C-alpha cells in the first residue's frame, strides 16, 4: 500500500445503493481511481476493510433510524473530508416524502407488524446531523462529478461544479426545451446542472434530482409550470419529488398548497 495515497471509505445509509453502483459503474476510470486512492472501506466492492481514520468519506443515503443518527457521528469523527453522495444524502431522497405525511400511516399500509420497526418520523440529509464538507447531488450522482471531486481533492483545489441550471446543459447538447416545445412540466430552469440534461434529452421533464441551484427563481417557475399542468396538482407533486426535501423546493410546494394556487384544490 502506498502510504501517500489518500484513504477512501464508502458508507451506505438509507438508500437504494444506486450511487454506490454508479461508482462501481465507472469502469475505465475505476481502475485509475483505485490506482490513485486507497479504497479502504467499500463493502459493496470488497469485503476487505482497513481501519480508519479515512481521508475521504463518501456517504450515500439519508438518516432515517435512531441507529443511523449515531453511526453518522462516528463516521464524521473518522473522516477528514466528508462528502454527502447523492440526493438521499443531500436532501433526504425519495424516502423524505414521509416528512410531508405521517410515516406511521405508511408503515401500517406496508407492514403487518409495524411495531417491530424502529425508524424516525423523518428522513433527513447528512448535513442535518454532522458537518458535511461537500455535497454531490443527483439520483444517482453523476460519475464525472465524482471523479472531478476526487481529482480536485488529490490536486488540492476546489472542484469545478456547475453554478447554472439544467437549461444550459440542454442547449449545449442541442436538446429542444421540452417545457416550451411539448408543454411537459420540467424543473430544469430551477435545477442545478450536473446530470448533463439526461431527462430532457430523452424527451422527459427534469424532475429536479440535482436539487435547486443557488439563485433558482422557484416562484416564477411555479407560475410557468402551472400553465402546462397535465393534471391538477402536477407542479406541487413535481417539487415534492426526489429532491422534495430541499429547502427551496419545500418552500415552493408549501407556497402552492398555502396560497390556494394548487389547481388540484380548485378542481375538487
Amino acid at each position, binding site marked *: 500500500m502506498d502510504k501517500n495515497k489518500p484513504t477512501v471509505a464508502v458508507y451506505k445509509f438509507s438508500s437504494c445503493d444506486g450511487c454506490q453502483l454508479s461508482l462501481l459503474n465507472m469502469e475505465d476510470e475505476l481502475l485509475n481511481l483505485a490506482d490513485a486512492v486507497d479504497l479502504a472501506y467499500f463493502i459493496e466492492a470488497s469485503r476487505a476493510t482497513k481501519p480508519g481514520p479515512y481521508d475521504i468519506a463518501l456517504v450515500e443515503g439519508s438518516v432515517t433510524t435512531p441507529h443511523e443518527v449515531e453511526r453518522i457521528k462516528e463516521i464524521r469523527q473518522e473522516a477528514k473530508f466528508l462528502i454527502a453522495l447523492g440526493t438521499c444524502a443531500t436532501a433526504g431522497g425519495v424516502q423524505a416524502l414521509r416528512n410531508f405525511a405521517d410515516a406511521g400511516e405508511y408503515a401500517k399500509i406496508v407492514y403487518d407488524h409495524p411495531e417491530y420497526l424502529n425508524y424516525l418520523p423523518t428522513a433527513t440529509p447528512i448535513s442535518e446531523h454532522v458537518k458535511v464538507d461537500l455535497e454531490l447531488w443527483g439520483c444517482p450522482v453523476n460519475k464525472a462529478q465524482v471523479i472531478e471531486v476526487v481529482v480536485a481533492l488529490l490536486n488540492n483545489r476546489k472542484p469545478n461544479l456547475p453554478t447554472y441550471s439544467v437549461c444550459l446543459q440542454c442547449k449545449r447538447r*442541442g436538446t429542444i426545451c421540452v417545457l*416550451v416545445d411539448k408543454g411537459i412540466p420540467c424543473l430544469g430552469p430551477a435545477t442545478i446542472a450536473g446530470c448533463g440534461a439526461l431527462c430532457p434529452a430523452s424527451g422527459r421533464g427534469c424532475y429536479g434530482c440535482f436539487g435547486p441551484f443557488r439563485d433558482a427563481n422557484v416562484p*416564477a417557475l411555479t407560475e*410557468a409550470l402551472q400553465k402546462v399542468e397535465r393534471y391538477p396538482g402536477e407542479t406541487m407533486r413535481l417539487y415534492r419529488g426526489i429532491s422534495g426535501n430541499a429547502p427551496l423546493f419545500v418552500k415552493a410546494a408549501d407556497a402552492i398548497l398555502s396560497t390556494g394556487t394548487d389547481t388540484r384544490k380548485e378542481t375538487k
Partner: protein
Amino acid sequence: MPNDHKPEIGSTIVIQKETFNAILSRLKEKGYETIGPRVKNDTLIYAPIEQMDDLPRGYITEQDAARFHLKHTGHSRYFDAIPGAQSWKQFLFPPRAELFALRKVNNLWEASTPETKTPSYAFIGVRACELAAIQIQDNIFMRSDFNDPIYRARRERVFILTVDCMYPAGTCFCVSMETGPRVKAGFDLNLTELEDVFLLTVGSEIARDLLKGIPFELASAFLLRNADQGLERAASQMGRKLDISNLPDLILNNLDHPHWQEVGARCLSCTNCTQVCPTCFCWDATDEMSLDGKETHRERVWDSCFNPGYSYQAGGNTRPTIRSRYRQWLSHKLGTWKQQNGTLGCVGCGRCITWCPAEIDLTKEIPMLQEEAR
C-alpha cells in the same frame, strides 16, 4: 431551356423545385455537409439533409411567448416553417469545442491540439434575421485585433443558402430590427419560394460555379413581382414589433429603473434566452484534469450572463441578483452592443420570446421602460 453557362452574380434565376435536389447533390460533391431544417421528435431542428424530402415540407410553426408548436398543414412549400430553438451559431461557434490537451513530461507541458478536420458546411435555408446574426457574430469573432481560430476556419468555408421569409411567426420582429424579411447581402445563394418554383439569386462565384449546367431561366418580371408581393405581405404580418428609435439611450439612461426589479422577479435566470439567441456569444473555458494532475483537456463551452457563476471574481459576484443579470443581458443586447460593434445585438428573430418559459418578452419590456415614470 437547358444551358451550361453560368448565371451572373446578382442575377435571379428560376428553377423547378425538384431541381433543388441537384443543387444539394452538387454541394455534397464539392465536399459540403448540407445542413437544413428537419423535423425530429415532432419539433424543428437544424441537421444534415440529404435531399429535399428531408425538408419540413407542409409544416408551419406557431410561436408565441413560451409557446412553440410545429404543425403540419399540408401545404406544398418546403421553407415555410419558421426556425425553432436552434440557430446556425451551433455550427460556427460550437457549444463545446476541445481546445488543446496538455501532458506533463518531466517538468514541461507538451501540448497537442485535436486533429479534427474543419467541417465545410452548406447552410440550407438561412433566414434574413439569421444571416444578420451570423454577420453580427462575425464582428465578435473576427475583428481586426482578434480572430477566433475555430470560428474563422468554419466561417470561411461555409456556403450560405438563404431563404426569404414569406410567412413570419408570432414572435418575429425582423422588420423592426431592419434585418428582414428580405435577405439583402452576404449570401452565396438566396432562395425565394413561390408556389410552384424557386427563385435563386446568385451572390457569389462559388454559387455561380455550383449552378453550372443546372437548367434555369432568368426570372421574369412577373415572378419577381410575385416574390416582392410575398415579402411585402410578410413584412406586414410580423407577430411583434419594437420601436428602436430611442435605443440604446432609453436603456442606458434607465439603468436604475424600477422595471428591472419587476422583470427580475419573473426571470428564471435559466439561460434559455441567451442560449437560443443567434448572436449571444459568451463562452467559458474549463479544464478537465486527470487523476494524477499530469494531463488536462481544455474545452470551450457556451456560457451565459444569466449563469450565477458568470460574473464571479476572487470570491465575490459582480451581479449577484437576477435583476442585475437580466439588465446586463438586455442592456448589452439592445444598448451597449451598439458602441461595441456598431449595431444592436438583436436581429428580431424572436427566439428569446418563444423559448423563455416565463414568457418574458423584450418587445413588451422595452416599452415598459418608456412608459413607467422614473
